């Protein structure tokens, strides 16, 4: 399975590491092309296209990619039992993580809170 979205994809842990260390704000959605994941990708695509969050790097990563253990094994995701795992990084550190479907409104609220 591949992620059929218009977002830039991470395929390795090294790529993730590089972006979170070079960009102040990074949002990563780690999932599949499932019903709970797709709305989150959609919200990210719209926020990216809006230009209102040009200071955020929006990315996705396939949950089943072995390299996605870099997300799956985060302590912030240890209680998660629903796809997707969405993680927000600021200055290289995890500042927020959510499990399962999120609306654009919820994503926007988080971005506004942490930026």
């Amino acid at each position: 399975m591949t992620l059929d979205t218009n977002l830039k994809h991470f395929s390795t842990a090294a790529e993730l590491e590089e972006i979170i260390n070079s960009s102040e704000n990074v949002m990563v959605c780690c999932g599949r092309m499932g019903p709970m994941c797709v709305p989150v990708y959609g919200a990210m695509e719209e926020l990216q296209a809006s230009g209102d969050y040009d200071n955020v790097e929006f990315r996705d990563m396939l949950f089943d990619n072995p390299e996605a253990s870099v997300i799956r094994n985060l302590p912030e995701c240890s209680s998660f039992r629903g796809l997707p795992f969405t993680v927000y990084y600021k200055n290289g550190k995890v500042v927020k993580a959510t499990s399962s479907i999120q609306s654009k409104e919820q994503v926007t609220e988080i971005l506004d809170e942490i930026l």
Partner: protein
Amino acid sequence: MKKYDVIVLGGGPAGLTAGIYLSRARQKVLIIDEGMIGGQVVLTHAVANYPGLDEISGYKLASEMKKQAAEFGCDIRTNEKLVSFDFSNTDKFVNTKSGEYQARAVIIAVGGQPRHLGLESEKSFQGTGISYCATCDGDFFTDQDIVVVGGGNSALEEAVSLTKYARTVTIVHQFDHFQAYDYAITAAENNPKIKFLMESEIEKFTGSESLSGIVIKSKKDGSSRVLDVTGAFIFIGYVPGSEPFKDCVILNDRKEIVTDEDMATSQVGVYAAGDVRQKKYRQITTAVNDGTVAALAILDYLNGTDPDKN
């Protein structure tokens, strides 16, 4: 206030199809969706029976419909919450958080969403034990004990599919019988991993960071018991998004909007299409049909050329 010929509420296949037909007929069309464009279709992993297309993801199909509608000139606005509306006169008014709009006709194509139990504790554990999608989240519960709530075809079929992962699946259902086809009941009854708790309902979900138990009340004798489970999958049906329109158009007892064969509702100039409408079969193709019919009927309505009314 921005003026349009037609406002379409809802950007699923019904709304987008109506938008395509209307804008191609040179009507000025606004499509508003409270979420993202595509409706339930985007939630479908693979669509294999849409005529003329090889298997395609629901997401891709919806994206293509949106692109087509936009290319014909539809103004498409997503994540716009409906605040108020007035459909009682010839001119229809819609207010959202972002703007005020006027049109001569409206199509309600807002679809529906999975029904929730409505418990406060249900929200707390969504994503940390409670799920509405077995194919998405089933593998998180490998070798664990879980429940499925519901007694229809979806509940029974998903319970069987979850036995691929879970150690046990207990089906919790409020009645003493299922509302499902015989084949689905038989498959569940014959599965050694599935147990049944009939005439029972969930009182509360419990746990700290993630779900660890469920308080279940018997409807027979009123007693409560705690079931130690780490997962709960809820399949208790589907709710049409008709609630905001209940004082404006006639609904049936299932809260679906009643229309005639032209998709016209009880309110002149207001049409309904797709899953929000009273109908027997809910498919992408039937939504597309509804959107087409509503659009053509509106063209007749706006032009005063409806052969049945002239």
